[in-house]
């Protein structure tokens, strides 16, 4: 007969749920999204709204088709997070069908066909992004010039809606290449990094306007780490890997390779490090593995930016390291307490 009440572990419960973590990710995105709206206008918000609506409908349809409870799975906001991560990465005037196809690829194909939240081997938002990037290169590279560059007036909400839903042509003066695009094209023309950076698209550190969005995402990301919604090891690994390889190449030839602070502060590096690579489902699960996983993404991002065919490579790098994550986990198991080192 038992004398003591025995309970199995865990003995200390943390009051977090999937829904809470997902909502924290959404809150953490707000400062960066606000900066994007300030510099690129209403289109960012319209994209977010379309993506959220499509994601919820797709999620509900797939849950119903798979015979899963609707309220519990819709309530955890994971579909909304996927939709937001994808929508933020889209050009602000992306036509509505572009957003819709991207979100459907993410939710239906990358998430539910692989078994739903927790079973998907690839980051759904990045699958959606890559599908769009390789299928519709023209639409995906038409970015707006950020507010404050040149003498252009910002689009009104009505004009934005017309452009997104009816495909009304946008004045050419309003659209332009992203800083990483400019760097790539001008570099192809044989200009040095210092000459290219005189272009008005560039601001203090990276792109004008972009750098404030990056700052917003950095703030949100740091808050995520503070609340432990994201593991510090993945962003550290990723930014460390990117900084290391870009510093080495910058020291070798500063004319040909952009400085490390530019690389860290442009494109999706910060956003990807804190919000995309940290997806707990598709990332590596062991502490050491997470550092390696992050570093792999960072190095791949640099390789794709500097030597690949695309201006930015966060999405491809994340997907490639998603494939590697199970193998990394296999070789980096944490030491069991009391086990011998080595």
């Amino acid at each position: 007969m038992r004398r003591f009440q025995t309970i199995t572990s865990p003995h200390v419960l943390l009051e977090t749920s999937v829904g809470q973590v997902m909502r924290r990710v959404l809150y953490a995105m707000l400062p960066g999204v606000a900066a994007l709206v300030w510099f690129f206008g209403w289109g960012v918000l319209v994209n977010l709204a379309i993506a959220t609506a499509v994601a919820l409908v797709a999620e509900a349809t797939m849950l119903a088709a798979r015979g899963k409870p609707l309220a519990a799975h819709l309530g955890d906001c994971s579909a909304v997070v996927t939709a937001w991560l994808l929508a933020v990465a889209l050009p602000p005037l992306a036509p509505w069908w572009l957003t819709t196809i991207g979100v459907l690829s993410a939710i239906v194909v990358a998430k539910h066909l692989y078994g739903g939240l927790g079973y998907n081997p690839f980051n759904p938002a990045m699958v959606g992004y890559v599908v769009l990037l390789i299928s519709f290169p023209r639409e995906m590279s038409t970015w707006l010039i950020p507010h404050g560059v040149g003498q252009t007036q910002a689009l009104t909400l009505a004009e934005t809606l017309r452009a997104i839903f009816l495909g009304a042509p946008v004045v050419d003066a309003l659209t332009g290449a992203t800083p990483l695009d400019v760097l790539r094209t001008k570099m192809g023309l044989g200009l040095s990094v210092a000459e290219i950076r005189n272009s008005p698209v560039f601001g203090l550190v990276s792109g004008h306007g972009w750098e404030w969005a990056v700052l917003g995402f950095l703030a949100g990301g740091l808050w995520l780490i503070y609340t432990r919604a994201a593991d510090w090891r993945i962003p550290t690994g990723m930014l460390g890997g990117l900084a290391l390889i870009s510093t080495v190449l910058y020291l070798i030839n500063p004319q040909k390779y952009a400085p490390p602070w530019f690389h860290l502060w442009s494109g999706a590096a910060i956003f990807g490090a804190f919000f995309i690579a940290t997806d707990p489902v598709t990332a590596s699960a062991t502490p050491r593995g997470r550092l390696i996983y992050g570093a792999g993404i960072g190095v791949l991002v640099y390789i794709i930016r500097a030597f690949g065919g695309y201006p930015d490579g966060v999405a491809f790098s994340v997907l490639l390291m998603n494939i590697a994550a199970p193998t990394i986990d296999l070789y980096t198991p944490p030491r069991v307490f009391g086990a011998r080192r080595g």
Partner: protein
Amino acid sequence: MSESGYLQILKDGVWTQNTGFVALLGLCPLLATSNSVVNGLGLGLATTLVLLMCNVAISLIRPLVRPEVRIPVFVLVIACAVTAVELAMHAFLPGLYGVLGIFIPLIVTNCCVIGRAEAFAFKNGVVKSAVDGIATGLGFMLALVLLGAIREILGQGTLLGQADLLFGEFGKGLTLHLIDDYRGFLLAILPPGAFIGLGCLIAIKNVLDARARRRAAAKPASALRAAEA
């Protein structure tokens, strides 16, 4: 051999043991050339012809070949058949030959050809082997054409585009433009589209088969109930 025996061979080849959907043999040509209906149809016809010739030939020389050397003999026979088909295609359908290119000679390496030779033609008579060759070829062609249709509609918004490559002047009228001013969904034409499309087709086939099994299982039960009542 009864009538139903041949029907069974046909059904096995086209559906139950479909090369593309069930056996997953010959995936390299299946995935690579199925970017349009006409390409799929062309390669499907060529493969069917090769399968028919090989199965018949191997079934005929069955008594002369010692089992120890059967694989090299199969390879020789297949290589001859493929060369004949390739030359014929080069002569009569130069346009399609240009599009399919390396994949016609590569039928030699298609595992479904040597697979049928080993699993069927070497153990059965000429007529049965011929039926099996046609059935397997038709099954492969079904996979190619279905996948080709999906990828062509999604990727280019057309159906039977470039049909003149296969049907001559008459084929030009066959091309259907389903969607006007279609921008094209590049992913469907690119290799990932082939993998995703094939995966979806296999899933659909499995669903159909599961439904058929359920219905078959339900039938005796309902018949029993009817008898009791």
